[in-house]
């Protein structure tokens, strides 16, 4: 029994860590939460105020005169980049999973799958480097001007086509970063279905593709939804790649899909240095509130996805 108690005690650290993170962020951000109220979520101004003035007291908190903290543009940027990433990642992920599950001979499957799985292993900052030196010039000079010309009639697809930094570039690179999660989970789920399902469909005269598309894919829809939500959580919190290719726009909402944006995660990195110059410390606390909002969103998204996947019998999804 003692061995069990010792492991239980050590194991609890895993759970306690998550609670401690949330508790300390709440404690540290609390003055900012009191000051900013709900305005924080729907105002579109992030301004440290006049840093050489004397601090004034608002709602019992000391802030610099003219300081405003509203992150609507960050929420918009985070949700839009994630939405674009998902629009690209889900179809590509499903297609690649079907290819890996049924289109490749079983002997080669492990090795062909490696391409997709290694994509998940590449660090975020290397994706950022690739995005910065390769994708931005490519999309900005070669692809976006053509998209403006040919797709400009669609709302938000018209010009100016920008420099390559921005929403669509982020969405594309984020999609590549989250696709392996969807593909690997879905491939395992497809392969894990009872062989009789596949064989039954073939016996009724379906082709191999029709069996995959019409029978097996519907059977794993819960896994598809769960892994897509898991991928959503990952895209919401992605920092370094977005930081390097988003253009880090402040206080503006994107006008079209080529426009520069900023996300909550990348904003925390890009703004901490300047927030530290605020002598009242409210800017750093407001950044902590950004981190708290991001943390709460990702916990909600991940909890939902995990419960869905547990229910679908995919316990190991997303593990390395």
């Amino acid at each position, binding site marked *: 029994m003692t061995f069990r108690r010792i492991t239980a005690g050590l194991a609890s650290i895993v759970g306690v860590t998550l609670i401690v993170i949330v508790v300390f962020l709440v404690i540290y951000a609390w003055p900012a939460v009191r000051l900013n109220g709900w305005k924080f979520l729907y105002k579109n101004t992030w301004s440290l105020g006049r840093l050489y003035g004397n601090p004034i007291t608002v709602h019992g908190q000391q802030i610099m005169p003219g300081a405003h903290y509203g992150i609507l543009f960050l929420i918009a940027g985070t949700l839009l980049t994630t939405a674009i990433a998902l629009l690209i990642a889900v179809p590509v992920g499903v297609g690649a999973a079907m290819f890996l599950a049924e289109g490749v001979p079983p002997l080669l499957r492990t090795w062909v799958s490696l391409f997709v799985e290694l994509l998940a292993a590449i660090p975020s900052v290397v994706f950022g480097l690739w995005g910065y030196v390769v994708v931005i010039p490519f999309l900005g000079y070669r692809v976006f001007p053509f998209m403006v010309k040919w797709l400009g009639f669609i709302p938000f697809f018209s010009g100016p086509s920008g420099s390559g930094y921005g929403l669509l570039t982020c969405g594309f690179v984020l999609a590549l970063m989250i696709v392996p999660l969807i593909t690997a989970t879905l491939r395992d789920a497809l392969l894990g279905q009872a062989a009789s399902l596949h064989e039954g469909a073939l016996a009724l005269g379906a082709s191999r593709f029709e069996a995959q598309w019409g029978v097996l894919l519907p059977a794993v829809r819960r896994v598809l939804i769960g892994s897509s939500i898991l991928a959503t959580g990952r895209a919401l919190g992605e*920092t370094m790649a977005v930081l390097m290719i988003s253009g880090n726009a402040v206080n503006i909402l994107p006008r079209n899909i080529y426009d520069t944006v900023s996300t909550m995660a990348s904003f925390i990195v890009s703004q901490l240095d300047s927030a530290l110059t605020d002598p009242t410390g409210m800017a750093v606390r407001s950044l902590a509130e950004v981190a708290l909002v991001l943390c709460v969103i990702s916990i909600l998204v991940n909890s939902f996805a995990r419960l869905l996947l547990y229910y679908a019998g995919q316990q190991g999804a997303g593990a390395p």
Partner: protein
Amino acid sequence: MSATPAVADSAALQAFNARRRWRRLFDYLGWSLTVAAFALLGGAMVWIVVVVFLRGASAITPKVITHITSGTGGGLLNAIQGTLVLAFGGILLAIPPGLAAGIYLSEFDHGRLAPAIRFFADVLVGVPSIVIGYFGYVTMVAGLGWNFSVAAGSIALAIISLPYICRTSEMALRQVPRSLREAGLALGAGDGKVIMGICVPAALPAILTGILLALAISVGETAPLLYTAGWSNYLWTGHLTKEPIGYLTYAIWSFITEPFSGAHALAYAAAFFVTFFVLVISVISRMVLDENTGWRRRRLR
């Protein structure tokens, strides 16, 4: 009388043929699209690796691994040392609770604690790394007054590796056959003896692979370190607190945006080291954990 069925037959035949053509087209289009989806991913993978390896290989000179950074030039010795110190520090801190949690999840999976820990671990994986970095800044760097330091950076990395080590050890221990445990218990060994003396050694290759994977993730992380470890141009002198330390991923991020080709070369060299390390570990771990050719088949079947 005989003409009517023939007409019906040919109409049915035409419909059948049209349907068959449509099904062939659907099949063809479907498979083409799945191949295209895979080709997009594989192509991107190859493109990234080629860019990083070609530019990185041409940027690596002896100076890169023998000199420390000076301004935006010099070498990366300080960053290589820092990455190793931070990653190993994080892993060493994460192994005891991570392995214990893995053991608990696999061996004592009854009652309420195990599902709760599993759920927390799975949610913790999804918490953005920048949030963990900011938590480290708030609590350790600013709160405890450690400043940018090895201790703060390692603890941030430990939090990130913790759930990975936990879940991979759980998976590894679950592969150990039940009969091994029963044999141990029948010989009179207690829970602790059976688990630490039989199950953990039997699952050791897979557990170590999980730890290696967590190490690879730590080496590739940037966001949790920016505001916990800081950055330093100098070699680490052994202080756990109040001394910032360099690491390779910072060099990639900050040097590529400098306007000097010397700085770009350092960024590519750093990207080469990090990517190479991470990919090699990932390939090795696939080989060890692969169900058909890997460790399980050789050791336990």
